[in-house]
């Protein structure tokens, strides 16, 4: 089988599954709307800032995972894309932690 044929057959396989995918997209959409309402509702509770940040980021992470996993098809994507994103995630975490690590009261600069 040539790679052209492989691509065409992949496309027709997807076409056959597409109705199933659409049902999932609608469920994900409903979940995203519900989680948005929950995020806003929680913000009106009298939570401490630490708790509010934890809850808001937890819900945002669930929402982000739904978008990436289903709308962006990451849950059925090729290994190479996953590898690129794992590398990106590692650098992203380092980037986010930089303020903590380089703070004047940081654990190594305080020596």
């Amino acid at each position, binding site marked *: 089988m*040539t*790679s*052209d044929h*492989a*691509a*065409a057959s992949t*496309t027709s396989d*997807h*076409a056959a599954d*597409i109705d199933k*995918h*659409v049902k999932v*997209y*609608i469920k*994900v*959409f409903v979940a*995203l*709307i519900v989680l*948005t309402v929950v*995020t*806003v509702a929680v*913000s009106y509770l009298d939570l401490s*800032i630490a708790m*509010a*940040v934890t809850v*808001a*980021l937890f*819900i*945002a992470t669930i*929402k*982000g995972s739904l*978008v*990436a996993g289903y*709308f*962006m098809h990451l849950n059925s994507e*090729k*290994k*190479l*894309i996953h590898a*690129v*994103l794992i*590398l*990106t995630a590692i*650098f*992203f975490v380092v*980037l*986010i932690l*930089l*303020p903590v690590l380089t*703070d004047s009261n940081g654990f190594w600069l305080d020596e």
Partner: protein
Amino acid sequence: MDIPYTVEVRRDTGLTNGKIAIWLFLASEVMLFGALFASYILIRTGAPDWPRGAEMLDVPLATFNTIVLITSSITMVMAWASLMRRRFGTYRIYMGATILLGFVFLTVKYFEYSHHLALGELPSTNNFLAVYYTLTGLHMLHVGGGMAVNAYFWGPGAKLWKTNPVWFTNRVEHSGLFWHFVDLVWIFLFPTLYLL
């Protein structure tokens, strides 16, 4: 010469070139927004006091905008799904709706910005507003860029559907990946700027 691997997948990557390219671009975008989020954390944790977002910003309006952007994400994926089902007319409706929802999002942001500017709340007023304008401004540029690409695929770029439907479907999928990324960024911007 034809552009290679637009429809057929490369044997070594298992992907079309467009797919790997858009994901590499999105990886760089993660780092761009990541740097700004890291700056936000640094500025906020270093500040003696910091206003809660709801004290400065319009939460109901931003909630409406969040719902608009999430809705545009499902219309975008439905546009791609329509092409997979070989329904070009339905694709046009969903893609048109996606562009329209992007326009609604930017219009709401225009009113939000106008309100703040009328009150004399500029990026130079305080660090909160500097962070707000930088992050939402960059995000709005992305919404505008995504809309421009989507408008091209709704209009003149759609001619490709007649000559090479698989390539066109792939292009719309890649454009969709960018659009969903823009939605994903907003999913984090909304609580961190408006609710916390």
